[in-house]
């Protein structure tokens, strides 16, 4: 029965790719920087998922260790990123990313 068959690694890869693509697309279309940030988190999680799946399918625990590192970096990134958003909001009273285009060439 197909429903009881073992899932191959490819399924995990496709799932990971799907989540990553959704995160990337979300990042591209949204204008609220907080939501954009959350999309980045989604992309990172997609990456994590692939790491964990690979660790399981290869039987090597190091994949899970990398996830640990990714999470740490993500936490650091969120802390700094949100601080930047707060600082920008203080200055401009808006956090619409389209308002922030002073660096135009």
């Amino acid at each position, binding site marked *: 029965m197909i429903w009881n068959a073992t899932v191959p690694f490819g399924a995990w890869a496709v799932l990971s790719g799907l989540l990553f693509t959704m995160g*990337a697309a979300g*990042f*591209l*279309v949204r*204008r609220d920087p907080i939501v*954009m940030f959350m999309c980045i988190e989604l992309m990172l999680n997609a990456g994590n998922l692939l790491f964990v799946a690979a660790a399981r399918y290869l039987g090597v625990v190091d994949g899970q260790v990398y996830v640990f590192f990714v999470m740490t970096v993500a936490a650091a990134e969120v802390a700094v990123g949100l601080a930047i958003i707060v600082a920008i909001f203080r200055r401009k009273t808006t956090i619409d*990313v*389209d308002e*922030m*285009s*002073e*660096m*135009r*060439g």
Partner: protein
Amino acid sequence: MRAYLWLIPLLPLLGVLINAWFGHRLPRRVSGAVACLVVFGSFVLGVAALIRLIGMPPGQRIIYHKLFPWISTGGFESAVALMYDPLSAVMVCVVTGVGFLIHVYSLGYMAHDPRYPRFFAYMNLFTFAMLMLVLADNFLLMFVGWEGVGLCSYLLIGFWFERKSASDAGMKAFIVNRVGDFGFLLGMMFIFAVFGSLRFHDVFKQVAADPATLTLTVTGICLLLFVGATGKSAQIPLYVWLPDAMEGPTPVSALIHAATMVTAGVYMVARCWIMFLNAPLALTVVACIGALTALFAATIALVQNDIKRVLAYSTISQLGYMFMACGAGVFAAGVFHLMTHAFFKALLFLGAGSVMHAMSDDTDIRRMGGLMKWLPVTGVTFWVGTLAISGIPPFSGFFSKDEIIWSSLAGPMGSWVFWVFGVVTAALTAFYMARLTFKVFHGQPRMSGEQKHHLHESPPSMAWVLILLAVGASLAGFLNIPPAIAHLLHLPERWTAAFTNFLEPSVGTHEQAVYLLEASVGGSQIGFAKLAHGLQHNAALEFGLMGITLALAAGAILTGRWMYVSRPGTGTALARKLPFLFRTLQNKYYLDEFYKAVIVRPGMALGNALWRGFDVLVIEGIVNGIAIATAIISRLFRVFQTGYVRNYAAGILAGAILIIWVLMR
């Protein structure tokens, strides 16, 4: 001994650092005292080392001290290493001793200058560089000192840079010196190419080991080195910067442009005595240039009216003497005159400074006269200097100048021609110095009432320095009593030519000179037959010639008195009778004008052509072209810089996709 040799140059460097960094925050008294004390410390160390040196057996009087390796690349090695031998010892003691006195004099002379610490920083820097020059044990380190003193000379000539003439004079000195330095540099490269080392010891050993085959090469090297010497020591044709250098403060003229730096060329030639003796042609050139310069500068000094310029031309003339002695193969005589000259010329310059101080910085001797009444100390000490430089016994100049004149005849490369030049120059020297002294200190006062009102003797710090230097100028000659006189007076052996004997390990004996000269011409086919003619032991001839010189010098001084005190106006009348000669001398043989027409103008024209043609069109074209191209490309690329994060993110994602696609294929 080794342990503190390095302190000799280091102390002045310490003074530089203190005065350059903290000088403006320190009280003036402290800043000046530091500068004087460090030089005095070097002097004490130098004398201590000298005593140590005298205590050693004559053949081993040399101390090496390698401080640290400096450049070490492939086949080239050079270390910061010091060497203390009799020649270095003499130079160190002169530089620091006279230098210290001049530093003390500057305390009073520069007291009202706003850039007081800077002046002392430069003076200390000069002392440091000069000490490196004379203590170096290789050509490269010597060149460092050589360039260092040139830099300090430039800085100090242009010390009052608000005056255009002063900054111009500084640049002139620097540029003219560069010509000479180029020769030195080429000579140094030549030395390295031939001998594979720049250490004095290695090079000289190789030359001494094989004089016959190396002669041609060494002649080339020596001529190049001598080009450097003519620049630094203001000889024909590169002497033009020294008279202009008088724009600097007078202590600078005394220290750098009379006593020490300008003698660097003589020192260098004496240091390389083995090489020069191996190159008779180069030695002849040295002697000829020296003799010509001595006479030439002395004639110009006859008619100058600026007190410092007279002394400047006299310095050039005396340096010519030193080179003449070296060229005749008697280096000790040149170095001895270097030492006595340091005393009496520093004395004369500082006396001139004292006069200027009293005359509110007026330097024109036509407006002076009768100053003896107001400036007794300056006047008397100035007279000591005048008698010394004129070669009147028992002042130091008599001994040194007489030795040079005698050497120019009796030296291994001596000749009657040089002797005639020497004697004529001696007479001229006595005459122009008498003219200067009589016009300044005797006769009717010719200054304005305003100036007369301000006339005053210099402060004690300056007066005492003059007195000390006068003592030195009087007595230094007794260090080197010629054998003939010593024999006549039955003086003990150790009084006879003590200085020459002390110096001989560094600059060679008569016998060594003769041996090297004969070896370098490969036998005697050219004829150095007279080398061994024993002229140097002919006491009767020596006394006779000495008498001629003395009589001429004394006569010249008396003529000077007659012309400028008894019958003022004789000089002017004479000038009117010989207008062409007078104008030629007054304009220094139009040599400055000649250089301007032949070198400066074409140089400017070439420079202008290169500037307008090559630089503006090609170089600027390339530079601006790059800038314009960048601007155009940037205008293209700035379209991508929308300022929207999402565009950048899309770019990143597209790039990622592209990379994956490339990897996937």
